[in-house]
């Protein structure tokens, strides 16, 4: 029975376990320990708390949307699918982060909590789509109507069409390279778990792209519920930076960071309800200040 229960563990669970491991390992590197002979706590040096602020461009890579409904002709296929290769994003607010960490010799680790906010600026997006959209019953079509979508199309997105707010917690393990006195170049890799909030004044990408088709059948997108979802996701970071130890109490840091956040959410409403997946990629320059904890 227990083995049966284990089989039920899905990929999401394994992702969480891997992320938890990645968070715990760097913390363990610098955490306190006990001397078994004296029973006293041994405190490693170079433990710190720091805050940082960052800014930089971003993009939505591989935005994929599929209908929540299956095709009437072939139930194993979705009613429609669509994908966009690249959508530009930008910070709607600077990224803010709080880190607890430390280093010992060449190795360091951090626990990091951060808020990343990106939005899509106005742009024309070209997308690939297949399938049909279901038009709910109207007086002309009492059984509803299946409208075949164009295989390639474009849509003009207004500024702020999608707003991404990602609240992350994760761990970063890094190499701390001794360079010159008080200056430490670093390169690391981090994994994070995130709660992603996606907002729009429209119901979602699918509804927005189909608004003209739906309008021909008497539907107005303004009557639909706006998008506001909260889902869990994960991401990874590659920070390359520099720490400058100003004195025994403080240090300053600067890093360039490539960050990818895997986001999924349920968008649009009614019969256009869709499952969306995308990767929010951002390049950030972060500046921070930290305080050593004794």
């Amino acid at each position, binding site marked *: 029975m227990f083995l049966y229960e284990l089989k039920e563990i899905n990929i999401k669970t394994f992702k969480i376990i891997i992320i938890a491991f990645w968070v715990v390992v760097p913390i363990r590197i610098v955490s306190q320990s006990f001397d078994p002979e004296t029973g006293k706590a041994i405190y490693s040096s170079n433990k710190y708390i720091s805050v940082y602020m960052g800014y930089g461009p971003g993009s939505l890579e591989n935005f994929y949307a599929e209908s929540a*409904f299956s095709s009437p002709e072939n139930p194993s296929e979705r009613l429609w699918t669509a994908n966009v290769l690249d959508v530009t994003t930008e910070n709607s607010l600077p990224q803010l982060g709080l880190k607890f960490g430390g280093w010992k010799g060449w190795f360091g680790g951090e626990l990091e909590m951060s808020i990343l906010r990106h939005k899509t600026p106005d742009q024309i997006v070209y997308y690939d789509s297949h399938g049909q959209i279901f038009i709910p019953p109207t007086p002309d079509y009492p059984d*509803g109507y299946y409208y075949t979508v164009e295989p390639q199309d474009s849509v003009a997105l207004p500024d702020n069409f999608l707003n991404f707010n990602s609240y992350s917690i994760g761990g970063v393990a890094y190499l701390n390279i001794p360079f010159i006195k008080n200056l430490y170049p670093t390169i690391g890799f981090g994994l994070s778990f995130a709660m992603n909030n996606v907002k729009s004044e429209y119901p979602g990408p699918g509804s927005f792209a189909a608004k003209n088709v739906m309008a021909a059948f008497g539907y107005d997108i303004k009557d639909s519920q706006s998008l506001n979802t909260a889902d869990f996701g994960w991401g990874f970071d590659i920070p390359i930076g520099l720490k400058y130890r100003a004195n025994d109490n403080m240090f300053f840091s600067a890093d360039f960071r490539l960050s990818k956040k895997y986001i999924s959410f*349920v968008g649009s409403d009614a019969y256009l309800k869709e499952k969306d997946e995308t990767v929010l990629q951002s390049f950030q320059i972060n500046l921070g200040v930290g305080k050593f904890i004794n």
Partner: protein
Amino acid sequence: MVKLFQYLFCLFMVSSISLSNIYSKDSTSQIEQGAVTQKKVFKEYLKIILPANMFFGPYAFMYGVTIGGQAIVDGDPPLKANTKWLVAPLLAGALIQMKTFEIKKYGLKKPTDDNNSTFYYNIFYVGPDISSIKEFNAKGDDGKWSADVAEAKTGTDYPPLGYRTGFSTRSFGMDFEMSLLAHHTLEQKAYYNFEGQIYNEDYNMYVDLPTSMEIDLPSHFLMLHSMYMGINAYYVLPNFGVTPYIGAGGGALLNSIQSQYPGPANLVQEDGALALDEMELNWGYHGMVGFRYMREKSFYYVELRPTFHNFQYESGLGRLKEHDQFVLQSFQIQLGVGKNIF
């Protein structure tokens, strides 16, 4: 019943072993084998409270579910029924705590060590959350149809309430947790994907349905009550005025699913009856990040938790009987107070 017993027995064994033995290396037991240490007394304390909580807790929960269900049958609104549900397990919890307090005061020896490297605590918390049902899937018992809903909105009448007992060293902590959770579906229009044929009672035959369908769900269409019993483990990070920690937990869920409607496939309300009243054992897990404000003998804390609770049950009647499953996903903000046991 056998499944319930197996789950509880496993959880009891894991709780007892992990909470009492995991940190033996940092103890001073070799020096003070004859002394009454906090660790020894805590072990004795666990031997008393774990069986009490794990026996009377589920019993009171099931009793509460019965009372709440009866309130629905008697025509009480869901809020009143939920209130009645909550009273039974809370009362049982309070009685267990009172008895535990007495045993602790008069039955257990007083620890003679002043080892303050380990903090033994009891926590009481409230945990409001934002939740939703994800990946709702229903399959006909006759194997002729299946339906799924990507997402359904849920809410609460009362925030989750819980109790935790455990220990925390300067770098590591572990505790046993019991909590009461009550969620319900909000009034909404749910759009679902349908495949296959379903039995139509009016025509006494199986009929094809469109793949895209909608259903108007009233508030409290599904009333979900759970008792969670599990273990948490966490790492304690350096103190900077508040003490942050990060960890994860998992455990058994005793789930009750009630509705005035037989099931999603049959939306005819049963007046004066509880058409769906299922109880099942399942499991759930969560991550946790928290901050404690430590005082000498107590602490206050706030903890953020992404949680995933699994539900699987049978609903519907006759040829509309179905097997339903979903994940109740929530983001919980836990606020609580912890007190030193000694």
